């Protein structure tokens, strides 16, 4: 029994330096996730800002009319279309469309994957942040405005600090989902962690070792993120009282 496992280990990881494949795969997964995360947060913040500014200010802007009103209405509509499409279709399908249709002429599949996952994640981040803003009592906005803060100042000094603390758990949850979702990158020929594990399996005809190894590696990544989340939340809570 033990010898069989040892032989399996030798075959799947040591022979032909196959462990290097896993390492490379891990690196690709981390790269895609990291860049997608940054893109996602950037998009998320912008979309959430547009959507909640629209909800909060459109009445007063309507009275003023003019370019600002048209601009914000247009931006809001665009954001809604974006959210509907991204949240309404599977990530894999988006990835395939990005690779085979939109960026068909590109050979940089890694870049396409980063962008595609980033755009996907942005939709979820946007709704998380918007939900966080909505969850802040209207009285907080009114108190900020009545003290003479403009809309931006109220958001910056009063609302956002409270939002960050509220959305942190949901945001980390989204990051965890993102890490695991990048496992479909193999669909467009990227050799990420999952793909590499599967490649080893297909070469050694031994499924157990490589697939369990891949699973464990994801698990460790996610546990690391959870740990980070815990610490951050605890620190923010300490600041409160």
């Amino acid at each position, binding site marked *: 029994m033990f010898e069989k496992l040892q032989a399996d280990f030798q075959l799947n990881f040591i022979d032909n330096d196959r462990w290097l494949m896993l390492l490379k795969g891990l690196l690709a997964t981390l790269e895609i996730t990291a860049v997608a995360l940054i893109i996602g947060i950037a998009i998320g913040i912008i979309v959430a800002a547009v959507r909640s500014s629209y909800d909060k200010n459109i009445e*007063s802007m309507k009275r*003023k009319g003019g370019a600002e009103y048209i601009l914000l209405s247009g931006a809001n509509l665009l954001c809604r279309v974006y959210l509907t499409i991204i949240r309404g279709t599977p990530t894999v399908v988006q990835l395939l469309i990005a690779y085979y249709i939109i960026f068909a002429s590109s050979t940089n599949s890694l870049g396409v994957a980063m962008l595609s996952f980033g755009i996907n994640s942005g939709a979820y981040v946007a709704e998380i942040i918007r939900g966080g803003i909505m969850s802040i009592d209207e*009285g907080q906005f*009114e108190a900020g*405005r009545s*003290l*003479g803060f403009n809309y931006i100042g109220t958001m910056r000094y009063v609302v956002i600090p409270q939002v960050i603390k509220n959305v942190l758990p949901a945001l980390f949850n989204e990051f965890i989902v993102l890490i695991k979702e990048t496992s479909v990158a193999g669909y467009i020929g990227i050799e990420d962690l999952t793909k590499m594990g599967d490649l080893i399996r297909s070469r050694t005809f031994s499924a157990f070792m490589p697939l369990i190894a891949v699973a464990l590696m994801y698990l460790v990544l996610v546990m690391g993120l959870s740990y980070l989340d815990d610490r951050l939340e605890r620190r923010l809570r300490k600041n409160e*009282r």
Partner: protein
Amino acid sequence: MSGKSKKEAIVRIEHLKKYYRDHTIHALDDVSLTISNGEVVCIIGPSGSGKSTLLRSMNLLEMPTDGHIYVDDVDITDPNIDIDKHRQKMGMVFQHFNLFPNMTVYRNMTIAPEKVLKQPKEQIDERAKKLLLRVNLGDRGEAYPDQLSGGQKQRIAIVRALMMQPEIMLFDEPTSALDPEMVGEVLDVMKTLASEGMTMAVVTHEMGFAKEVADRILFMDAGKLVEEGTPEEIFEHPKSVRLKEFLAKVL
């Protein structure tokens, strides 16, 4: 129109209307009034009569459908004026305090003078200390709102607004969310403020306070300004049927 008393008036409201749901509900129905410098005006009336809406219109937390509101002779309903500048001159105290829960009492008080007025820190500090002492909370500067009682919260909310050195203070049912034993401490602060000559507009259910402190009382019902007068006129010699009915219920 009201040209003679122009210099005195801090707030002048002309034919203010507020409709909800496609003009079927009249929250404010052609309300006109003036609040002069140093005056304490209490707004009373049954719930849903539009008194809070009227008060909140004065710094445009509520957007009127029609009519004009002049603050220091500037029409703040004009979409092109800088409303933030005007709000700085108008302190507002809410029924539910609306303190910032993530900031200390001290930060609640100093953030707006620091970020909006950009005043020097020492000046803000000094003012904050004085104000905290004035409301007997000199030792609670580092506390968070959650650690305060309702009465303490509201007193902090009042001094937070005073930190901006406003020309007028708007009170929107400042004691309605308080336990009965805490109402007094908040009213006391407001009385002191009134005696010091602060211009105040107070929406309240505290008839005793209105009687004692108000220079003028406005009675509202169904979005209309039904009757106005001195406390004596309102409480001793009410003219309209609606006011008589209202007083019979609350007194």
